[in-house]
């Protein structure tokens, strides 16, 4: 197969951080699209277990700490043995931050970088090696953030990791020569996250300043991830911002 032919839709997708929230929603959407899904998280939640029991031939779940490279590589092997070759990856696992940089310990900065940048780079490397060793082609979607492009207090290390992942997206898309499509999806702040740290007045102000008039919801992200995993769009090396236009 020529590398210039369109890459087919994903058939078996690995989702990191697939236990809840956006990650679990992505897992469900992959299943709805008819593909198989391997999902891991630090803790396997009832939602993951239920999907694995409902679709035993199409779902493989496991408890893996994203920063444990050996465990992640083992998970890929086990998942492929159960489901067949993996040809797509959604890097969703991440930890947050809500502290000024001067009051964030070096240990916490290290943990944020390990989980949000090193771990997805290492996981991507492992999945690409898995794909390439079988002569395959595939797709990678990195879930990043509007923080990579705009400044927000309290999110210095977090923003740095998301910016790093966006930069890696571009370099990797170039490096893979069209054999693997690599893109980022960069949501704005979810309404649920904002409401936990801001008062109703501040939320109203931010919402008013968002041209679409509403903050982003996980459900807004899923169709874009689906497009990047399944559609023939020739989108490659891009960061797609989903923030209702708040960042323009």
């Amino acid at each position, binding site marked *: 197969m020529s590398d210039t032919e369109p890459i087919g839709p994903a058939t078996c997708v690995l989702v990191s951080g697939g236990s809840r929230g956006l990650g679990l929603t992505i897992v469900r959407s992959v299943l709805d699209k008819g593909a198989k899904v391997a999902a891991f998280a630090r803790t396997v939640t009832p939602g993951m277990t239920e999907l694995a029991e409902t679709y035993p031939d199409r779902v493989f779940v496991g408890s893996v700490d994203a920063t444990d490279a050996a465990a992640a590589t083992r998970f890929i092997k086990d998942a492929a043995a159960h489901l067949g070759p993996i040809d797509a990856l959604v890097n969703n696992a991440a930890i947050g931050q*809500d*502290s*000024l940089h*001067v*009051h*964030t*310990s070096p240990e*916490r900065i290290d943990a944020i970088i390990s989980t949000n940048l090193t771990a997805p780079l290492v996981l991507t490397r492992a999945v690409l090696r898995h794909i390439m060793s079988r002569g395959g082609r595939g797709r990678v979607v990195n879930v990043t953030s509007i923080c990579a492009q705009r400044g927000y207090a*309290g999110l210095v290390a977090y923003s740095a990791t998301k910016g790093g992942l966006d930069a890696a997206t571009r370099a990797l898309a170039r490096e893979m020569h069209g054999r693997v499509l690599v893109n980022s999806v960069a949501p704005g702040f979810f309404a649920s996250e904002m409401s936990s*740290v801001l008062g109703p007045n501040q939320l109203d102000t931010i919402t008013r300043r968002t041209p679409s008039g509403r903050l982003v919801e996980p459900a807004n992200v899923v169709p874009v991830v689906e497009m990047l995993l399944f559609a023939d769009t020739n989108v490659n090396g891009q960061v797609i911002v989903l923030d209702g236009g708040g960042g323009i």
Partner: protein
Amino acid sequence: MSDLSRDEVRGMMADVLTKQGKTLPAGDTTPLDEIGFRSLDFSELALRVEDEVDAELNFDAPGLREIRTVGDVLDFIDQLLTA
């Protein structure tokens, strides 16, 4: 961590304000926005306390957002010192 007293921390808070031409009132109930004590002023105070006790007092922002008065500042620093 240290036996830095509440009065000593209050003195440091007064220093932060004095440097900006502001005054720290005697009572604990004065709202911070009345005296112009902002979040970065709190950071400066925390760093001064760190220097004094020779230890880092790292903390997340949610606790900071609950601080409204002079007394809240002193209580928060006290909690960090005794944690």
